[in-house]
C-alpha cells in the first residue's frame, strides 16, 4: 500500500485564509528568496534612493542647493515636522491615525512661549503636560471606548485649536519668548553650525528606532497593527500600546511646537494647519503601511527630508510659485502609495 495514502478528514474546511492561505502546501518552506528580499528592500529604502537621487541632481543643477548654509536651513526646517512625523509613525504602525498633531503642535508652541517667562523648564513641561493630556484623551477614547481613530483625532484637532484660541484671546495675543533666555537658545543655538533642533530630532529618531525595533514594546506595536485580535489572544497589552502611541504622538507634537516657538521666539497662533497631512504624507512616503503592521522610523526621516528638499528646490528655482510645492508632494504621495500597493501585491503572489 502506498504509505502516503492517508487523508485529512473530509470535514476539513478552508479557514484562516491569510495571505498565505492558498494551496501552497507543496511549496518548499525555504528561506527568504532573493526576489522577496529585493522587494522588501525597495519598500523599506526606496525613499532613501529617491532622496539621494534628488539631492545629487539638485546639487548639480543648482549650485546654491548644496551649500552648507542651505543644507542647514533645510535640516532645521525639516526637524520640526520630523518630530511630529515620528509620533505619527508609531501611531500609523499600530493601524491608527492622529489628525490632531497640527493643532497640538500650534498649541504646544503657544503654551511654551507663554510659559517661557518662567524659564526653560516650565517652557518645556507645560506644553508637554497639556499635549500629553490631549494624546491621553485620544488614546483612551480609541483604545478603551473603541472609537475610530480618524474621527476621535479629528475632534481633538478642533478641540486643541479651540483651546489655543481660548488661550490667546481668540488669537489676538502672541506670547513672546524672552530674548537670550535658555529656551530661546534651545531653538536658535547651534553646535558646529547645526541648530539644536536638528540634533534633538536626530536623537529622538535614534531613540524611536531603538524602541521600535529592539524592544518588546516596539514589537507589540507591529503586532497590534498587523492583527489586533491576534495580539490580544497572544496576551499582548493591546489597549495599553494604543494609548501609549497616542500619548507619545501628542507629546512629540507638543514638543516640536515648543521647539518651533523657541526658534521663532514667539507662540505663533496660525501655524500647524495641515501639518498632520504633511506628517502622514512623510510617513507613508517613508514606506510605513497606512494599514499598520509594517514601517520604520528611518523611512519617515527620509520622507520628511524628501518633502523638505522638494520645497527647498522649488524655492531655489525661484520662478516657480510656492504652490508647486504641494503639487509635487501630492504627486509624490500618489506615486509612492501606488508603487507600495503594487510591491505588496506582487509580494503576496510570490
Amino acid at each position: 500500500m502506498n504509505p502516503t495514502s492517508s487523508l485529512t478528514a473530509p470535514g476539513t474546511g478552508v479557514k484562516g485564509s491569510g495571505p498565505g492561505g492558498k494551496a501552497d502546501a507543496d511549496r518548499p518552506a525555504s528561506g527568504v528568496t532573493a526576489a522577496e528580499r529585493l522587494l522588501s528592500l525597495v519598500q523599506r529604502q526606496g525613499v532613501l534612493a529617491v532622496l539621494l537621487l534628488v539631492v545629487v541632481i539638485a546639487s548639480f543643477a543648482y549650485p546654491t542647493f548644496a551649500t552648507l548654509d542651505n543644507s542647514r536651513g533645510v535640516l532645521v526646517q525639516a526637524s520640526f515636522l520630523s518630530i511630529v512625523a515620528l509620533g505619527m509613525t508609531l501611531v500609523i504602525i499600530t493601524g491608527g491615525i492622529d489628525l490632531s498633531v497640527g493643532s497640538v503642535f500650534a498649541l504646544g508652541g503657544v503654551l511654551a512661549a507663554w510659559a517661557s517667562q518662567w524659564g526653560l523648564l516650565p517652557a518645556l513641561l507645560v506644553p508637554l503636560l497639556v499635549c500629553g493630556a490631549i494624546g491621553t484623551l485620544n488614546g483612551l477614547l480609541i483604545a478603551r471606548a473603541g472609537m475610530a481613530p480618524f474621527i476621535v483625532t479629528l475632534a481633538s484637532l478642533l478641540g486643541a485649536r479651540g483651546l489655543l484660541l481660548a488661550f490667546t484671546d481668540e488669537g489676538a495675543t502672541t506670547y513672546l519668548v524672552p530674548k537670550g533666555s535658555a529656551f530661546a537658545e534651545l531653538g536658535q543655538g547651534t553646535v558646529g553650525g547645526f541648530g539644536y533642533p536638528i540634533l534633538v530630532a536626530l536623537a529622538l529618531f535614534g531613540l524611536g528606532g531603538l524602541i521600535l525595533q529592539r524592544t518588546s514594546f516596539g514589537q507589540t506595536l507591529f503586532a497590534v497593527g498587523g492583527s489586533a485580535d491576534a495580539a490580544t489572544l497572544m496576551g499582548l497589552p493591546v489597549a495599553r500600546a494604543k494609548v501609549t502611541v497616542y500619548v507619545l504622538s501628542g507629546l512629540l507634537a507638543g514638543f516640536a511646537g515648543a521647539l518651533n516657538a523657541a526658534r521663532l521666539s514667539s507662540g505663533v497662533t496660525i501655524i500647524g494647519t495641515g501639518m498632520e497631512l504633511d506628517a502622514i504624507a512623510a510617513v507613508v512616503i517613508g514606506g510605513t503601511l497606512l494599514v499598520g503592521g509594517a514601517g520604520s522610523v528611518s523611512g519617515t526621516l527620509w520622507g520628511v527630508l524628501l518633502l523638505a528638499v522638494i520645497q527647498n528646490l522649488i524655492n531655489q528655482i525661484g520662478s516657480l510659485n510656492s504652490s508647486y510645492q504641494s503639487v509635487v508632494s501630492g504627486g509624490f504621495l500618489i506615486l509612492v502609495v501606488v508603487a507600495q500597493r503594487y510591491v505588496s501585491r506582487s509580494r503576496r503572489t510570490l
Partner: protein
Amino acid sequence: MTTQAAAAPARATATRRNTTAWFQEYGVYAAVAALLLFNAFFTEHFLTVDNLRTQLIQVAPIVIVALGMALVIGTEGVDLSVGSAMALATALLPLYLGYGLVPALLVALLAGAVVGLVNGTLVSVVGLQPIVATLALFVGGRGIALVLADGQLKQIVNPDLLALGTGSLLGIPLVVLIAGILALAVAFLVHRTTFGRQVVAIGGNRKAAALAGLPVKRVLIGVYVLCGALAALAGILATARLTASDPSSLGTLMELSAITAVVVGGTPLSGGSVRVLGTLAGALLMQLLRATLVKHDLPDSTAQIAQAAIIIAAVYVARERRSR
C-alpha cells in the same frame, strides 16, 4: 435552540437597546429641535426670518459637500479632497468666465468631477485606502488651483454668477434652493435607484457585492465623481457669495465640516448606510450651534471645543450600533 435561548435575555436588554437606538435614529433631530427651542426663549432675534435665512445661506455649501461626502462614507470611504475641489472650481471660474457663464460653470464642475475620477480610480482600481488616495489630491489639488490662479485673489464681476449667490426665488435664496433640491435628488438616488442601492450594498459588504455581480469599480468611481462635482458646485456658490475667487482659502477645513455633518447625522463611518435627512440635520445642528454661541457672545474657541465634544458624543452613540 439558540433562538429560544436568545429570547429571554434579549427582552431584558431591550429597553437599554431601545434607548440607544432612539438616540441613534432621532438624536440629531432632537438636538436641532432643542437648540431651536433654547434660542426661541433665550436668544433675541434668533427665530426671525432674516436670521434663519442667513443661517440657511451659510449652511448651504456645507450641505452640498456633505451630501457627496455621505455617499462616499456610505461606501466605507472618505474624501479629504473636497476642499481642494472647491478651490479648483473657484480658480477656474474667472479663467473661463470670458466664454460666458455656462462654459465657466461646466469647466468648474468638470474639474470637480476629474478630482473625483482620480480619487475613485485610486480607490477602486488601484485599491488604495480612501484616506491616502484622497490625501494626495488634498495636498496637491489646492496647489494646482493656486498655480492656475497664480496665487492671486480675483474679484468676480460677472453679474450672472453673482446672482447665483445673492438671488432668490419666491423669497428663498437660490443657494438654499439648490441645496434643498440636491438633497431631495440624493435622497431619491439613495433610496430609489439601482445606483443608490448598489452604493449601500458595496459599503455594507464589498466582497459580497462583487460576487453578486455588482459593478463595484464603476459605482465607487461614480460616487467619488459625484462627491467631487458636488464639492465643485459648492465652490461655485461660495465664490458667488464672496464675489471673489480665492483659491488659497476657499473650502479650507471643508472636509472636516462635511464629515462632521455626516457623522453627527448618524451615517456610520463603517459604511453600508447613507442618511440624507440626518446629514442635513447634522449640518444644520453644527451651524445653529455656532450661531447660538456667537449670539451669546461666546468666542469662536468655545464653538470649536463644543463642536469637538458633539462629534465625540455622536460617534460614541453610533459606536453602540456597530457592537450590536
